[in-house]
């Protein structure tokens, strides 16, 4: 914390290594002395980067005058891990392992968007089997549920509504159990691969999905009962984090924030991918432009996701889950071996014992990867947070030349200042929670 009549500026020190900018704050004695000298209430508060209400390592720099926020800024980059740079040193298929870790609450959206971009570059987007597309939609809608559940749960926790938090994480656990059944992992799946999927659904998935749908239909109304009509909850959320349509368009806000301003823009409807045009669902909107509206939207979107999951179960027809082109399809024949997940022993026996060519092919595809013709493409999906876009550039090699993720959390977080300035300090937390930023996606 420091005080200043204008802005806090970074301290500068000259060292033998060069200029060092000090942005960690100041000496507490100086801070206290300056606060004593100051005759008004205007102070600058650093909230974060490690604060329970900032969704990870987000640093909010608030200039407050009494209880009013006069200026709000974000400090980001604390979780920057250089994923985009790392992708340039792996094969196209290995890329999914990295992108799934970007926004770690929406791994299937990251994977699908990335794989769609690679498939567009290869020109095989129409060859992806139907079953793979249905499973992608299924996983994405499950993921929308788990992401919105965390948004509501952590949002509730930040208001002090710990019951909402417990309920949200309880239901998210049901979704994570399904992930574990289908992909073997609760997070960081790398299950969706360029050309299709890593493997098919294991036996018993449909039964587990039906069981899950039954439970969720019982559990979802509980959020309504807990929050929707709750006067305390409404008092905290209504008219907070206000951003109207003009603000959303100018600041590039998408997802629930844009739809809370009344515009029914959803890429699943306007620019369908993975066969979304064949599913029957609605894009809910409200026109309140505030945090309460975004909460209602997330609840409704979860109900719509359940509808889509039901339709996915009906659409699951037996068939391949990977493109037929053996020059692209990763030769994985995963099976549950004695050491957990691994390549199936039958496959190993086949390539090692009977077919020298298959062995060579397997080895080359795994170590060298496939080549992607030069060019660039943009693929976008509607993630729970908004438009998740991937700009992928190939130079004709086996590795991405450049992959850029337009993460919705990053862009939506820009709107934080517009939502918070002029409001109360306590409302900053509500506004940030309604943006639902995930720093893994913001910083990448």
């Amino acid at each position: 914390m420091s005080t200043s009549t204008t802005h806090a500026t970074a301290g500068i020190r000259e060292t033998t290594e060069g200029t060092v900018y000090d942005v960690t704050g100041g000496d507490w004695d100086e801070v206290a002395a300056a606060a004593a000298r100051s005759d008004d209430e205007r102070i600058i508060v650093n909230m974060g980067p490690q604060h329970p209400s900032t969704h990870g390592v987000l640093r909010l720099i608030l200039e407050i005058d009494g209880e009013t926020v006069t200026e709000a800024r974000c400090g980001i980059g604390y979780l920057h891990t250089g994923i985009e740079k790392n992708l340039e040193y792996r094969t196209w298929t290995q890329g999914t392992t990295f992108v799934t870790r970007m926004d770690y609450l929406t791994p299937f959206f990251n994977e699908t968007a990335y794989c769609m971009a690679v498939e567009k570059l290869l020109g095989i987007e129409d060859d992806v089997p139907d079953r793979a597309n249905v499973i992608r939609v299924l996983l994405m809608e499950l993921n929308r549920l788990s992401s919105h559940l965390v948004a509501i749960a952590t949002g509730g926790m930040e208001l002090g509504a710990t019951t909402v938090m417990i309920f949200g994480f309880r239901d998210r656990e049901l979704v994570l159990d399904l992930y574990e059944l289908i992909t073997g992992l609760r997070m960081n799946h790398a299950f969706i691969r360029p050309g299709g999927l890593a493997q098919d659904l294991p036996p018993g998935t449909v039964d587990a999905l039906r069981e899950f749908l039954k439970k969720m239909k019982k559990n979802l109304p509980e959020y309504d009962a807990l929050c929707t009509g709750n006067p305390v909850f409404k008092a905290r959320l209504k008219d907070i984090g206000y951003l109207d349509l003009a603000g959303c368009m100018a600041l590039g806000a998408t997802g629930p924030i844009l739809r809370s301003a009344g515009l029914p823009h959803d890429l699943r409807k306007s620019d369908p991918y993975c066969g979304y045009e064949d599913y029957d669902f609605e894009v809910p909107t409200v026109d309140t432009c505030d945090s309460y509206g975004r909460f209602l939207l997330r609840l409704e979107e979860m109900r719509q996701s359940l509808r889509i999951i039901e339709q996915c179960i009906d659409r699951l027809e037996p068939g391949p889950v990977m493109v037929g082109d053996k020059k692209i399809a990763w030769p994985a024949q995963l099976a549950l071996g004695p050491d957990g997940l691994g390549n199936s022993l039958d496959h190993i026996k086949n390539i090692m014992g009977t077919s020298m060519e298959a062995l060579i092919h397997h080895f080359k595809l795994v170590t060298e990867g496939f080549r992607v013709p030069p060019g660039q493409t943009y693929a976008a999906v509607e993630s729970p947070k908004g438009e998740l876009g991937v700009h992928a550039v190939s130079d004709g090699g086996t590795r991405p030349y450049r992959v850029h993720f337009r993460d919705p959390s990053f862009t939506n977080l820009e709107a934080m200042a517009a939502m918070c300035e002029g409001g109360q300090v306590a409302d900053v937390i509500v506004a940030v929670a309604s943006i639902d930023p995930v720093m893994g996606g913001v910083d990448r």
Partner: protein
Amino acid sequence: MSETSNGNGAENANGSVPAPRNDSGEVIGVRRGMFGADRGGDTSGYGGLVRTIRLPGASSRPYGGYFDEVADELEGALEEQGLAPEDAIEKTVVDRGEMTLHIAREHLLQVCRTLRDDPALRFELCTGVSGVHFPGDKGRELHAVYHLRSITHNRVIRLEVSAPDADPHVPSVVEVYPTNDWHERETYDFFGLIFDGHPALTRIMMPDDWQGFPQRKDYPLGGIPVEYKGAQIPAPDQRRSYS
């Protein structure tokens, strides 16, 4: 897949091998050998192969789909403003069902404003800017790529602007698309592209005192060798690789 070479990288003229996708595309590099392995000897017998890497080249009309309409409207609107379209739009590339307009950097702001405000174009949503560094594209090494979405007409187009490494300046479009504030800071942070007119062009991801621009191709990935089951596994950018 590849054409043999007479040693100076010229194309095979007798047509015995397929021509690259488009001859007029920008050359971004040259690849040698069969597998593109850059370490160790090439024992494949194809070590003399030389391939020129080109990006997809300019397209000619009709572009197909809504692209012709976008191009017509944009050219018409620019002419009305007294700007010759061929001065602003260097070339148009239609590839893989996507349209890329290569814009001269000095006219970027005007083109963006026109694309946003013209009722027939109405690209109201900018999804940010992505940088690409092509050290092999001499004289225009740094590219800034913008994707614009029109919700009104349900269209997407791409703008591409380039700047040389020696003069890495591109006008900022923040006054037209305020959303690009952070995106331009990010691209500056990673590529060193300076967006003239940006309200506060500072680093956003890397620490303020960071040296260098990490996403440039000449910036090493870094990393240390790791021991695994007794063997030394080199850092990712030191491993044998194929391009």
